[in-house]
């Protein structure tokens, strides 16, 4: 009796497991399709924007840039300074021991400009603005502000989503450039004070390495544009999907987790592609 019950339970738990995986995969597929649709609609709205729509959108874009970009400067500065200092100190003190001093500039470009800059910036934007944007839109959805816009003949896509989208992409790119500047200059300055490295020689090596691979800056900017799009699309999608107050915090959580996972995967993909193309 107990054997048959055990086998029944194990069979039913396996079936439950398969059902859960199926339901999760279906939900994920639906979310991804929804996000692709939202991205397409947003780009369409952007391309079809008339003068009045542009005027209304500019106000929203400005406020998004202020929130995502300007208000995050202090946090990005702190992280850039810590990441830059750590990278510069480790590279400048360890590389001579390995006889690889000539690669110092290249290491800074690769680590700070290509990898840490875009990714740390994306993390800051996800944590601060992605969650904020999802909560903001979900709140508007629940309080019927989105319906009110539709009732007034104003497309929520061009009033909320598209400006958030544009502001998020612009801010992410600008913040990443800012991260690079603060990370490199700050890192070299801190290193020259604490590890007695020569600032002028270090910056010369860095600039020489950058001049040899100028496309690395382009790649970094490309990554930021993609991260900005991912964060905006994922956050707006989960915000717009909320239908009651219980779903507002859920929207923020889904936006953060979804953006982080998507940004990680895309970062790995871009890095792998750039190395395989060399």
């Amino acid at each position, binding site marked *: 009796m107990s054997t048959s019950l055990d086998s029944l339970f194990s069979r039913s738990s396996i079936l439950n497991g398969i059902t859960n995986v199926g339901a999760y995969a279906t939900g994920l597929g639906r979310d991804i399709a929804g996000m692709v649709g939202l991205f397409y609609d947003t780009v369409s709205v952007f391309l079809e924007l008339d003068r*009045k*729509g542009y*005027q*209304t959108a500019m106000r929203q874009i400005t*406020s998004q840039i202020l929130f995502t970009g300007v208000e995050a400067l202090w946090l990005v500065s702190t992280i850039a300074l810590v990441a830059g200092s750590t990278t510069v100190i480790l590279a400048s003190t360890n590389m001579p021991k390995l006889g690889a001093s000539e690669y110092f500039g290249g290491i800074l470009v690769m680590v700070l400009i290509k990898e840490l800059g875009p990714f740390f910036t994306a993390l800051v934007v996800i944590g601060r603005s992605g969650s904020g944007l999802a909560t903001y839109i979900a*709140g*508007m959805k629940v*309080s*019927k*502000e989105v*319906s*009110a*816009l*539709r*009732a*007034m*003949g*104003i*497309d929520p896509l061009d009033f909320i989503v598209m400006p958030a989208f544009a502001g998020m992409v612009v801010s992410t790119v600008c913040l990443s450039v800012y991260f690079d500047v603060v990370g490199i200059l700050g890192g070299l300055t801190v290193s020259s004070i604490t590890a007695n490295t020569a600032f002028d020689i270090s910056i010369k090596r860095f600039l020489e390495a950058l001049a040899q691979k100028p496309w690395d800056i382009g790649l970094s900017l490309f990554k930021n544009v993609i991260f900005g799009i991912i964060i905006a699309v994922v956050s707006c999608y989960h915000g717009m999907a909320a239908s009651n107050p219980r779903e507002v915090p859920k929207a923020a959580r889904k936006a953060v987790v979804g953006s982080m996972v998507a940004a990680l995967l895309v970062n790995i993909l871009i890095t792998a592609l750039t190395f395989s193309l060399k």
Partner: protein
Amino acid sequence: MHMGERIRLDNISFGYGSNLLFQNVSFAVEHGGVLAVAGRSGSGKSTLLELAAGLQTPLSGQVEWKGCDLHDMTRKELLAERHRTGYLFQTHALIHNYPVFENIALPLRRHFSLSEQEIRERVFGQLARFGLMSIATMLPDMLSFGQARCASLARALVASPELVFLDEPTSALDPVTTGLVVDILNEYRSQEQVTFVMVSHNAYMIRAMGCKVMIIENKRLVDISEYSRMDDGRVPDIAAYLRKAV
């Protein structure tokens, strides 16, 4: 579709999951007509209003504005058609990060080629009618419920819509403000060929605006005049209350 009808709902059914709110609901309102929908809490009055305004999609049936099925319209066509409508939500639904002035100016800025001076005149004109000049620069979260409701109503009327949806326009308003709102709506009606579809239990308002009243009961919409032919024992409380009041 009668030529004089501004809005028509045909055999509309709607529900959430297996819970059907109403089934095969139909009504029409002529140009310049006023319809008030009443019913018990949770009977789906606000949802019916949202369906009539095309803000929700019915499970079956169709909604027509001036003979055009909303379902057949593209998103752009529907947005363009909404230039001519106004909507007051049960929650005020003012854009929370816009001051009252900007909230009311929003439809004007978005749909009309007006100068800043003209926009100011129209927005302040609306605010003055409601006696709300002092709140023009305030954000919605600084307003009392009644003030927010009036500001929201001012926004619904500022673009001179010809089809107005009002969800409980006088709820939480004091009697003086209720009277003011009714006067403004009646004045607006007398100037323009405006059609009103509203949810209201306010007997004074229903009487003062000469509304045709319908009641949602047992998932159906029933013309209140039908109740006059019924025995009192079969009449729901709310119908009896409204019938006496009206």
